[in-house]
């Protein structure tokens, strides 16, 4: 304690500490920002219903911006105009007159209709035609994938050529999912351990992956290419490293891939190793 007996000037010390740490920070921030190509929003939508999200996002942004601009104007005008000055007296108004009540009611109705109902109606329509419009699993065009999440990886099981889960030609992959373009991809999710969330930012879709129950989701890729799969629910300390790749292939390329993958799967299939044969009955 004796060591602290010095002429301590809090303000000066604080300034020094802040300045030194800030210099260090700016230096390291500059280093870490290097070699990074900047981006200010998501990559373009690559799924059939992704554009709906983008459209609605910008509609809400427009509505919210106007509303917030109004708030700021109503905040700034009194801030400048109505400051207390000698001799100035505020108006005496409890806001209880009928006129005020009507005004309040009108604004409320406008807010509900413009901010809420408008967005609500569009959102419902988008959901009914998109996210909640699950593809028919019996349709041959529907490509089905079982997704088994774990700390910290994605395990995928596709049916292979026979269209059945739990058979030797099931295509099993870790962290890479290969799907055909322009076909609805229907997915079943569950987890071995903790809750994960299957997040395809390019497809504008996300679904929690819960242990003990099966969750479903679908999307239809409309652009071929490689996309990222992220985990969007805290699943432990390596949460940030739990990512995979989604390969969307044109149908003909996909067919070749699927055939080869199925054969490769059969080569690695061991009927005695029952634990490796995870699969569950398809759920819709």
């Amino acid at each position: 304690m004796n060591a602290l007996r010095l002429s301590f000037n809090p303000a000066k010390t604080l300034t020094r500490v802040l300045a030194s740490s800030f210099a260090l920070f700016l230096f390291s921030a500059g280093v870490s920002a290097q070699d990074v190509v900047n981006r200010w929003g998501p990559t373009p939508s690559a799924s059939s219903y992704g554009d709906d999200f983008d459209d609605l996002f910008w509609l809400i942004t427009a509505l919210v911006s106007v509303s917030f601009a109004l708030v700021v104007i109503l905040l700034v005008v009194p801030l400048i105009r109505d400051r207390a000055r000698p001799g100035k007296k505020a108006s005496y108004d409890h806001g209880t007159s009928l006129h005020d009540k009507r005004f309040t009611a009108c604004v409320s109705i406008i807010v509900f209709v413009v901010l809420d109902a408008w967005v609500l109606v569009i959102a419902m329509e988008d959901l009914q035609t998109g996210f909640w419009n699950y593809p028919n699993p019996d349709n041959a065009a529907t490509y089905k994938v079982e997704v088994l999440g774990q700390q910290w990886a994605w395990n995928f099981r596709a049916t292979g050529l026979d269209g059945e889960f739990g058979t030797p030609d099931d295509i099993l992959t870790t962290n890479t999912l290969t799907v055909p373009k322009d076909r609805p991809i229907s997915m079943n999710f569950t987890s071995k351990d903790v809750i994960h969330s299957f997040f395809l930012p390019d497809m504008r879709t996300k679904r929690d992956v819960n242990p003990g129950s099966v969750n479903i989701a679908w999307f239809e890729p409309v652009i071929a290419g490689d996309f990222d799969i992220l985990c969007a629910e805290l699943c432990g300390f390596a949460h940030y490293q739990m990512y995979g790749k989604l390969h969307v292939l044109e149908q003909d390329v996909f067919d070749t891939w699927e055939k080869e993958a199925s054969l490769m799967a059969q080569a690695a299939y061991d009927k005695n190793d029952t634990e490796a044969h995870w699969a569950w009955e398809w759920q819709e």
Partner: protein
Amino acid sequence: MSGDHIHAEPTSFWKKHVFSVDHKVIAKQFMWFGLLWLLIGGLMAMMIRWQLANPGMPVPLLGNLLFSRTDGVIDPATYNMLFTMHGTIMIFLGLTPILIGAFGNWCIPLMIGARDMIFPLLNMLSFWTVVLGGLVGLYSMFVPLGATEAGWTGYPTLSTTVGTQGSGETLWALAVFLIGLSSIMGGINYITTIIRLRAPGMGWMDMPLTIWGMLFTAVLNVLFLPVIGSAMLLLIMDRVFGTTFFVPASIMSGASGGDPILYQHLFWIFGHPEVYILILPAWGLVSDLLSFFARKPAFGYKVTVGAMFAVTLLSAVVYGHHMFTTGLSAMLGESFMLLTMIISVPGEILFFNWLHTIWRGSLRLTSAMLFSMGVIFVFGLGGLTGLYLATISTDIFLHDTYFVVGHFHLTMAASSLFGAFAAIYFFFPKMFGRMMSERLGKIHFWTTIIPLTVVFCTMFISGYGGMPRRYYDHTSASYLAPLQHLNVITTTAAFILGAAQLIFAWNFVRSRWWGAKAPDNPWEVGTLDWTTPTPVPHYNFKEIPVVHTGPHEFSHPKLGDRDWISQTDKLPA
């Protein structure tokens, strides 16, 4: 009523300053306690931000002290502990004690003209329970394997032994349980005091809006803290006694087990009202302060009360919007979407009334007033962005991204923090008998609101770019690496924001001991608390005051040059 049995003022140090049953002492205890935890939680936020802008770089100054085993670098597990404890501390040990503990205790008896809370002993117990909860939470950071890493939401199965092995998580749950217990005790006390101990003449509609805010908060506390308490007990049983409330069996085994989603329902039935538990006191305070410093009556007092009541009701039935991606059925999703959006109506009414209150007023731009107007600004920003998250089709993408982080920090953290700052600047003269520096207060305001807006608006952009929250390092995923520059902006602004709080800390400490002596009513307002002498004497009121006017009778035409009147005085006929 409380005047019936007045005890002599305690003289021993312990009775007077530590185990005191005086609501004023307890309020100050809550205040110091909360400020201390805000400091700890704030430092954690700084470390989180450091890591995000400079992944894997040693933390300057504190790093080698705190993370010696990793040479000052925050490792992924420690990072998870930091954001988990940051959330828990800020919500349960920082903001709740200051807003509800300190100002609930300070304002309720003084503003309604009572000599103390109706259950003073319960009041003291409430404080010491939260201290115990805080100590358990603190201790949880020093057990083997460290504090919990399951996030402040503590979702199973990550929060069961499946995901976290150390006793940190168990102690965390215990701490939350204890803090909840404290809030329930406080809530019961507040409700009963407000109902039973109002001064003669003070009808429901003569109460300052602060008291209404506290009342609704207390009701929510009493109704919903038991839910989180039970969830925590179930979690503790799962962890310690091997029950499986939240631990499912593998879907492949065909066996039956618990349900982790059950916890999410329990948590958010509490969790959503918790947002309003934090924001309602701030709303109440701000509604009063805007009127006080605009020298105008609160616009639409009864409508404001009604709107706060509506929010209180609605808060209980919208929680499902936290769970849109968990697999809720379409019908439930639609219902929760609609209900959530309806909240915007009472919310808008509050804004309407606040903005109307300051319109054509005579604004005294004190620090307290600036922070009150700041609440309108940050809550406007936070509340409106809630629309993106209430709408399922946009929430699917934005859920669990930084968009959500920005949104809830603005609504429940920044707004309630601004409310707390406004309250501190406002009540400081009465609490500590000295004035805070207005000059430093104004510097504090501008150096807080500007970086704060930058921090959270940048988070909106990050979230819109798809950056998930609770990531240790965003540069490792190819999709997120191009967004890293946003993290650097956020962190820079966050550091300025953090540094600005030191101005407040300095102002607070300096004014507490060396500030100018405060007059009895420096702000010239009429509520009962400002009719007392400073410092407030033992048992507050020598005579229980009789209330004749409302709390916001400013600039009454018949008052002449004087633009305010005390609630104990009669308005000129």
